[in-house]
């Protein structure tokens, strides 16, 4: 394959395995970048009073190390495995929305490039810690476009994660092969579902928080830290930031951790020769306790912010409660080893390491759930040790196990076992030498670039630094082993571990010469399916040859390029260079969207619907399910912004009456217009269900007109308001805050309406060409869901901003 063909293949691919590999290798690259930053941090801290890094460079290194490791390494590494393995494990040819999958990857890559590029931009990179606390992340403390670039990169990453979650959830719920009921799903796929479910509800809050922050930094709104907002008595927006960030941030811990648990649950049976003990208990504990509680413990990160004692108590209880299901899960893992014929191969060693490190980190976490003990440990290296044991130790060791375990599936070749074991041993020793000493540093504050030469601080830090170098350098063994296996490994055979899961029996795509011929279809199904159907998989539809022909598209990549350019320009707004870059990016996005729509109109890209096991969504079309999943994330996005508005409003005494700002009759009339457009859209669906194409076109046109009138009135209203002095630069600081909230939320809603209007043009064009019929009108129904959601959001915005 020539270089051009090679490049074209990777740039246009929408194949889940390709995207999975892209995620895996990109995540490992970002992991190296984050690891390099960690070495800089440890060198700086190796001796007291060191000046290897200045304070600001140290802060940047710490911040970007955290952001890169969490957002561009740990989670994406898991997402890479989700991409590669979930379709194989459920017996699907691909994920539900292949182009959306590719788009998620390019957004992820774009976000990472922008974040790392921020180091080379005036102002330097973000330096306020991965929590980006306010007001530290405000322009007052971090001026310049550099930090803004890092934050918009993170925003792009969050969008990527949300899109990816919609895709994977829909795939698991809708694309399963016949016979693959929910009770038979492999554990890794179950945990992929849990993880992406948590992502779906957590990341919109991150999007909301960073969009508000970016708005403060770029446009000059006053949510968190402008001199105006800080001059208003009674308001403390830093608490608001804590609320928003940690509502996302604590579930993020489980988002990072749960994929490793899925890996562990899949790997243990392969190396013990026994089924997983307490499989149902693990699933029930995770689904019914871990996931709901993960969204109900976040305020334990805020014990020292002055929140009411009753809140502290309730979050103390919920935090301690969440350790119970984890106890059940760990006991199930340990019981699975009892009386097993254990083979101490590399993947199993890493699994064992992950479990041990999780137990250590988890026990440390129980101390931190207590408000009293938290006063001692908060902000110290004890906390650093705790979350590295949990988030890094358990997760990384689990995901390294996944690499060794599934490498033969990906390459058809076996890795070097001796090298793998040495890698485990050095990593385990290095990790503990790095983080165990930090348990002793409960009196050393974190995020400070140096420390005095008192007590044992010097020697403990020196030992930790040695551990860091051992741990990081050990990863070169992994890199060598993977590369060597890929090109020169010995053939592994189709199922080297004797696994019972489906991915080892489905056919392998002849993707690379290394794979070709190594793994052949063996017919039928084994494992959980054959256990249920001892006759050899009767009633199960085997996956046929990979159906990826014509399954390529340049559009996701092009859209990624356009969005990257746009976001690259954003931090430099309003300079000419910034605006120019944004305009070029917007043009690329616009052109690509048109081309994407044209591809669909000409049916250049089609993915056959498949999957016969759809319980409990049997009657629902695929895209409709995807739309509902997406809208549930939108509920959180708008809900978070409304929560932020309510916080600000409650905090400020003397919030102006709506009637003193807005034209109530005009706002009421406009609300009636938008609600009427909801009715006309419902009539459009009703018409096409009856097979009346002419009526469909008329109702669509009516909806378009009403939506356009709504936007027109909205713009004229904005024009009148700004003329009257109601703007984010009002002379009165309070009005700056009120205007910021109003324009941001109403503007975001307006952006949704505008996007809907654009889609409506496309739908009308397709209606004119007679595409939609009584039996085939899914796009109309799906769009109607979106439009109704836009109506619902306005049902809350109108009273909150215009009436109360």
């Amino acid at each position, binding site marked *: 394959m020539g270089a051009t063909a090679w490049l074209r293949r990777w740039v246009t691919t929408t194949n889940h395995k390709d995207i999975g590999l892209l995620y895996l290798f990109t995540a490992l690259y970002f992991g190296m970048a984050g690891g390099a930053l960690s070495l800089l941090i440890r060198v700086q801290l190796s001796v007291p009073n060191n000046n290897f890094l200045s304070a600001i460079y140290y802060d940047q290194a710490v911040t970007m190390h955290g952001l890169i490791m969490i957002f561009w390494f740990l989670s994406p590494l898991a997402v890479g495995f989700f991409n590669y393995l979930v379709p194989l494990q459920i017996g699907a040819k691909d994920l539900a929305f292949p182009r959306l999958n590719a788009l998620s990857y390019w957004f992820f890559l774009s976000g990472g490039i922008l974040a790392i590029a921020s180091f080379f931009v005036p102002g330097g990179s973000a330096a306020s810690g991965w929590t980006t606390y306010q007001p530290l992340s405000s322009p007052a403390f971090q001026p310049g476009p550099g930090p803004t670039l890092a934050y918009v990169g993170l925003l792009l990453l969050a969008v990527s994660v949300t899109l990816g979650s919609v895709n994977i959830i829909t795939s698991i719920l809708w694309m399963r092969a016949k016979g693959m009921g929910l009770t038979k799903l492999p554990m890794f796929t179950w945990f992929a579902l849990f993880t992406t479910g948590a992502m779906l509800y957590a990341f919109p809050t991150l999007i909301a928080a960073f969009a508000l922050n970016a708005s403060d930094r770029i446009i000059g709104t006053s949510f968190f830290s402008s001199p105006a907002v800080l001059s208003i008595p009674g308001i403390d927006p830093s608490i608001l930031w804590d609320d928003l960030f940690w509502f996302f941030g604590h579930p993020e811990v489980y988002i990072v951790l749960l994929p490793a648990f899925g890996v562990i649950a899949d790997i243990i049976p392969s190396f013990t020769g026994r089924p997983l003990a307490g499989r149902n208990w693990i699933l029930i504990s995770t689904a019914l306790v871990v996931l709901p509680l993960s969204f109900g413990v976040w305020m334990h990160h805020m014990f020292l912010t002055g929140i009411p004692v009753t809140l502290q108590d309730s979050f103390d209880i919920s935090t301690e409660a969440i350790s119970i299901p984890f106890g059940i899960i760990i006991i199930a893992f340990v019981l699975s080893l009892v009386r097993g014929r254990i083979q101490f191969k590399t993947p199993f060693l890493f699994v064992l390491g992950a479990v041990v490190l999780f137990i250590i980190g988890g026990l440390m976490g129980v101390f931190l759930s207590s408000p009293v003990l938290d006063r001692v440990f908060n902000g110290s290296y004890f906390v650093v040790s705790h979350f590295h044991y949990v988030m890094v130790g358990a997760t990384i060791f689990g995901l390294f196990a996944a690499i060794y375990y599934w490498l033969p599936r990906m390459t058809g070749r076996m890795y070097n076992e001796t090298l793998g074991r040495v890698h485990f041993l050095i990593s385990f020793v290095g990790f503990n030498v790095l983080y165990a000493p930090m348990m002793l540093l409960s009196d050393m504050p974190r995020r400070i670039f140096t420390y005095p030469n008192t007590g044992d601080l010097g020697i403990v830090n020196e030992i930790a630094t040695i551990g860091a170098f051992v741990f990081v350098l050990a990863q070169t063994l992994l890199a060598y082993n993977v590369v060597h296996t890929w090109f020169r490994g010995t053939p592994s055979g189709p199922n080297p571990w004797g696994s019972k899961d489906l991915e080892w029996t489905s056919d392998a795509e002849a993707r690379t010469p290394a794979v070709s011929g190594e793994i052949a279809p063996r017919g039928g199904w084994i494992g959980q399916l054959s256990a249920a159907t001892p006759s050899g998989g009767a009633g199960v539809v085997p996956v046929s040859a990979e159906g990826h022909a014509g399954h390529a598209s340049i559009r996701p990549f092009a859209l990624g390029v356009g969005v990257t350019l746009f976001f690259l320009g954003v931090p430099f707004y309003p300079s000419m260079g910034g605006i120019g870059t944004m305009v070029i990016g917007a043009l690329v996005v616009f052109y690509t969207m048109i081309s994407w729509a044209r591809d669909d109109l000409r049916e250049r890209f089609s993915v056959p619907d498949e999957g016969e096991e759809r319980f*409990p*969504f049997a009657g629902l079309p695929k895209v409709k399910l995807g739309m509902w999943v997406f809208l549930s*994330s939108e509920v*959180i996005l708008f809900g978070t912004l409304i929560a932020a508005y309510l916080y600000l409003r409650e905090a400020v005494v003397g919030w102006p009456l709506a009637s003193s700002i807005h034209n109530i009759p005009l706002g009421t009339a406009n609300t009636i217009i938008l609600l009427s457009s909801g009715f006309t*859209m419902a009539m459009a669906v009703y018409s096409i269900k009856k097979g009346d194409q002419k009526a469909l076109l008329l109702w669509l046109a009516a909806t378009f007109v009403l939506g356009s009138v709504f936007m027109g009135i909205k713009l004229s209203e904005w024009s009148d308001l700004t003329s009257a002095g109601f703007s984010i630069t009002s002379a009165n600081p309070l009005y700056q805050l009120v205007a910021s909230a109003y324009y941001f939320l109403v503007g975001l809603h307006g952006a949704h309406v505008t996007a809907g209007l654009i889609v409506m043009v496309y739908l009308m064009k397709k209606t004119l060409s007679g595409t939609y019929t009584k039996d085939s009108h899914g796009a109309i129904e799906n769009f109607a869901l979106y439009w109704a959601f836009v109506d619902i959001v306005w*049902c809350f915005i109108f009273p909150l901003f215009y009436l109360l």
Partner: protein
Amino acid sequence: MKVRVLLSVWLYTILAVICEVYAAESISSVVTAASVVIIFALSQAAAVVLFYMDLREEPGSLILMVIIPIMFLAGLLISVVASLG
């Protein structure tokens, strides 16, 4: 679904808007006015979800999928406001 159902939902949502405006302007207690207005807003949202989005005809699992984020959101709203002290 019959046209008259859709028409009724439309009329109800508009009527609810008018009631909201009336309540906001005529009820002097801010808390009472806010409660009445929010109840109307919730009822509008419910009507749109059930009839325009046809949720009442969808499987229970989908209804659950809609309820879960709303529950999380309720927790966020309550806790955020409560964190003011």
